[in-house]
Structures are given as C-alpha cells and as structure tokens.
C-alpha cells in the first residue's frame, strides 16, 4: 500500500506540471464541489413545480432560468451533478473491476481460460456500446442501478483487453517466476505480483472509461433510458425540454454546457494520465 500511495503522490506532482492536466483536474474538482454543495443545498427545490414562474429567462431570481414546470435550472444542474458523477464513477469502477478480473485471469492463465474469456468478450464487443446499453435497458427497464450495471458490462471487455495485453508483458518477468517457485498460488501471484505492476495502465484506463461513462450515461438519459423523471439528470433535462427550445433555449443550453465541460475536464485529465504512463515505460 505504501507503494501505491507513493505512486499516486508522484503522479499528482507530475500532473501539476502539465497545464492541460491541471485544467482538467480543476474542472473535475469544481464539479465535485458543485455536486457536494448541490447534495445538501440548492437555491430552490430542484423538484418543486412553480407553474406561475415557468420559462423565466435567466435573471436575478433564477440565474439560469426556469423550465416548463417552473423548476430552477441552476438548482437542477447542481443537484443533478451528484447523480451524474456517482453514476459514471460507479459504472467505470464496475467496468474496471470486472475487466481487471477477466483480463488478469485470461492473460495469466492463458490457454483455454484465455480463449473462452476473450471470445466471450469479443461477442460483447461485437455490439456498439450504445446499442448494447439501449437493448439491455430497453428491455430490463431503466433506472439508476440498471444504468450503472450496464455501463460496467458494456465497458468491461475493453478494459479486459487492455489488462490482458499488459499482463502478458509482465508475466515473463523473473519476479513472477520467483513467486511461482516459492509455491505461491495463482491468485496470490495475480494480486500481489502482477496487479501492482499494471497500476499505471489501469489508472489511464479508469480515467478514459470515466469520460466514456459520463458520455454514455448522459446519452442514455437523453434517450429516456437512464434515470427516470423527476431526477435532475442532465441528459434527461435536455430530453424533457427539447420541445421548448424555441421559447426557452436556456433549459437545454445550460445542462448541455454542464455535460460538455465535465467530459472535457475528464478527457484532459485522461490525456495527462496517458502521457504520464507512457513517459514511465
């Protein structure tokens, strides 16, 4: 664990050297702060209808305007931030965990295990990611937990492939042979010898999947297959107010800007991670 903390510290200090990475970190941190504040406090109740003040343009009362039910757009964006981040983070984490487990076993065991696991991953990857997500959510039903699971399942083959490739590079190393000769079990070797040595690529993979997960879950929300109304999910907000784009463009522009800025931030961060990791090799 000391090794892990040292690696993270070193990465962090080098991340601060890259302007783009720092910008990405700042954007993500800002949204995390908004999510935290929005969870406990918003200027208005994000769910309360106020028909008298529907479609109010941005002004001193409602900084970002109100939507078709008179709900405050700023409050909804603030309280939605927690959903968006939690959804994407847990989806990416599930993808990473599943993918790492599968990639580790396939890469380390090789042979038949590798063949079966990776062919199964191939079948999952023969579906474009959004298509698979739409199919499963369209039949299983939408909802927070289902979206998290689907994001995890859709992205896990891609993680598994990367992990398997890296494991195959580490496997021939002498310390792996040494551990095997000491009589350690396969699982111990995978977790204690190999896993710590692929943390770099895993970090990159996590940041990339996180960006994709925000993108995917927002698109699902927009298609009506994500979290359900009245949850202030950003994609869903755009879907709900799309019909009123002429009278109240702010109801779609601000959630749109929120999603884009968050994805831009995470993408900048992922780019910086990738450069750090490739510099290490």
């Amino acid at each position, binding site marked *: 664990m000391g090794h892990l903390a040292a690696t993270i510290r070193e990465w962090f200090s080098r991340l601060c050297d890259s302007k783009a990475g720092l910008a990405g970190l700042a954007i993500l941190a800002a949204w995390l702060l908004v999510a935290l504040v929005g969870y406990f406090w918003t200027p208005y109740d994000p769910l309360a209808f106020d028909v008298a003040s529907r479609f109010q343009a941005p002004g001193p009362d409602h900084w970002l305007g109100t939507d078709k039910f008179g709900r405050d757009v700023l409050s909804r964006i603030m309280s939605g931030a927690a959903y968006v981040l939690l959804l994407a983070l847990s989806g990416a984490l599930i993808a990473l965990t599943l993918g790492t487990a599968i990639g580790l076993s396939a890469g380390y065991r090789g042979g038949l295990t590798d063949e079966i696991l990776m062919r199964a991953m*191939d*079948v999952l990857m*023969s*579906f*474009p*990611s*959004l*298509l698979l997500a*739409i*199919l*499963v959510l*369209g*039949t*299983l*039903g939408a909802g927070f937990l289902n979206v998290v699971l689907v994001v995890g399942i859709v992205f896990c083959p891609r993680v598994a492939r990367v992990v398997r490739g890296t494991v195959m590079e580490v496997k021939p190393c002498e310390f792996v042979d040494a551990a095997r000769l000491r009589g350690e079990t396969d699982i111990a070797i995978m977790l204690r010898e190999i896993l710590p040595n692929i943390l770099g690529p895993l970090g990159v993979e996590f940041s990339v999947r996180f*960006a994709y997960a925000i*993108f995917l879950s*927002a*698109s699902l929300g*927009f*298609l009506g*297959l994500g979290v359900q109304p009245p949850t202030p999910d950003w*994609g869903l907000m*755009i*879907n709900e107010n*799309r019909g009123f*784009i*002429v009278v109240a*463009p702010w109801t*779609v*522009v601000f959630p*749109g800007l929120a*999603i*884009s800025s968050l*994805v*831009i931030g995470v*993408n*900048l961060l992922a*780019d910086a991670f990738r450069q750090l990791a490739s510099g290490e090799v």
Partner: protein
Amino acid sequence: MLRFVSIRLLSIVATLFAASFLIFAISQLLPGDVAQMVLGQNATPEALAQLRLKMGLDQPWLARYLAWLGGVLRGDLGESLMAPGVMVSQQLALNARASLVLAGAATVFVIPLALLFGCLAGLNQDNHIDRLISIMSIFAISLPEFVSATFLIIIFSLKLGLFPSASLIDTSASIIGQFRSLVLPVFTLSLVLSGYVARMTRASVIETNGQPYIRAAVLKGLSRRRVIVSHVLRNALLPTVTVIAMNIGWLVGGLVVVETVFSYPGLGSLLMTGIIQRDVPLIQGAALVIVAGYMVFNLLADIIYRLLNPRLRGG
C-alpha cells in the same frame, strides 16, 4: 489475403451467431405478456390464446430462438407487432439505406478534414497551430451528440434559419432541399469521430517524425516537402485507418442519438421506436442488422489496412 479474409469471415459468422443468441435472450427479458400488449386490455381470452399460438409463445424459448434464427437465415424477420402486416425486413431495408447515406456522408466528410487537421497539428508539434487543433479536438470528442445537435439546431436553424431541424426525408422535395436537411445530422455525427481521428493522426505523425529513417531522409538532403509527403505521411496514415475502423462503432452508436434528435428515418430511430412500442421482432431485427453492419465495416477496414501495409500484404 484470401486466407485472411476467409478466416475473418468465418469468425464473423461465429460471432454473429453468438450475438443473435444474446439479442434474442435480452429481448426475452421484456416484462409483461406480449400478446396482452398487442391486443390491449380488453382482449378476450380466446383471442389472446390464439395470438399466443400464432406467435409460438406456447413453445419453450429455445425452440422460439431456433425458429427465429431459421427465419433470419431465410431473410424473414417476422411481422411487426405494432404495425400488423408490415414485414420487419422490408422496414429495415428501407431504414438501413437511410442510415447508410447518413453514415457514409459523415465518413466522407470526416476523413479528409480530420486527416488534414491531424497532420497539421502533428507537423507543428507544440506550437500555436498544434495547441489550437488539439484543444478543438478535445472539445469535439467531449460533446455528446445530443448536446452538439441541440447547439447546432439553436444556432443554424432557429437563429440563422439556414437548415431545417428535422430531417424527415421528403422524397418529393428537391435534391437541394433533401441535401439541406442532411447537413446538420451529418455535421453532428462527424464531430466526435473527427476529433478522434485528428488526435490519432497527430500522435501517429509525431511518432513517425521521430523515427530514424526520417532523420536519414532529412540528412540525405531531401526537401522538407518530399520528406513529409513520401516518408512521414505515408507511414503515419497507416495506424489512422485502424482508428477509423475502431470508431465506426462510435458512429453507429451516434447514429441512434442523431437520428432520434433529427427524426431521421434510419435504423437507430427504428430501434428506438421498437423499444418504446415494445415491438420485439422489430427490436431483434434492427439490433441484428446493426451488429452485422458494424462487423462488416470492421472487416472492410481491416482489409484496407492490409492492402495499405506492404508488410502484411502477403500474409
């Protein structure tokens, strides 16, 4: 080459079988009684029983899968549940053509543009041009299609009135009218893909630029233009083909969103209609056609890559 293509074709067929099984299995998860859904709440028990029999709902699901698969192999995907009498395969053929036009136009539009920007950025590594292009491409890959579509509609169809915001293809409209209705969907679809292709092209140009044979070409006195055109670009563009192929999946996913936003009558919007109306044969058919198309395009890209790469041509 022939060997490579036949092996890949075999593996595609095998994967398609597995995918068809997965599609069928997922579509069986739909809650509720299909017969009840089709006939409504007021249906008589006799009518329900008759429809169940007709749809084979009394059979075990493996038998239904095999029956469906047999139909697929004969090109018969069944009848739409919500529009009785409409064959799913006919509907799919019609919408697949529309989707191909959209995806094809986006690809033709994206590739030259993205390659140009990627090369420009790569050749100007770390100066202003590179910074500008790199930032633009980060923006391009970070805007979900439904967001960029919404922004484009606000700017180009509501404020400027240049292009229509819905593109229900009206065959009676003039060619120019039809073209105008395609502009915004194609541009939206192109944005994410062009960002990825430009980024990968840039990385690939930079990597090639650092190779010893480039230094050799410069040292032997070739003009900068010669070095760039016949050494750097030639080698740098190869990996880009793979990137384009990998991102076709992205394009297909984008299709669903873009077609929904612009009410474009393609495969993606048909799939969404199927899901909203719980039209099982339509969902199965659309999903299968999209997966098959996706795999065929991936194979095509692999073949092009092999043709372009002399090291792999023989294998």
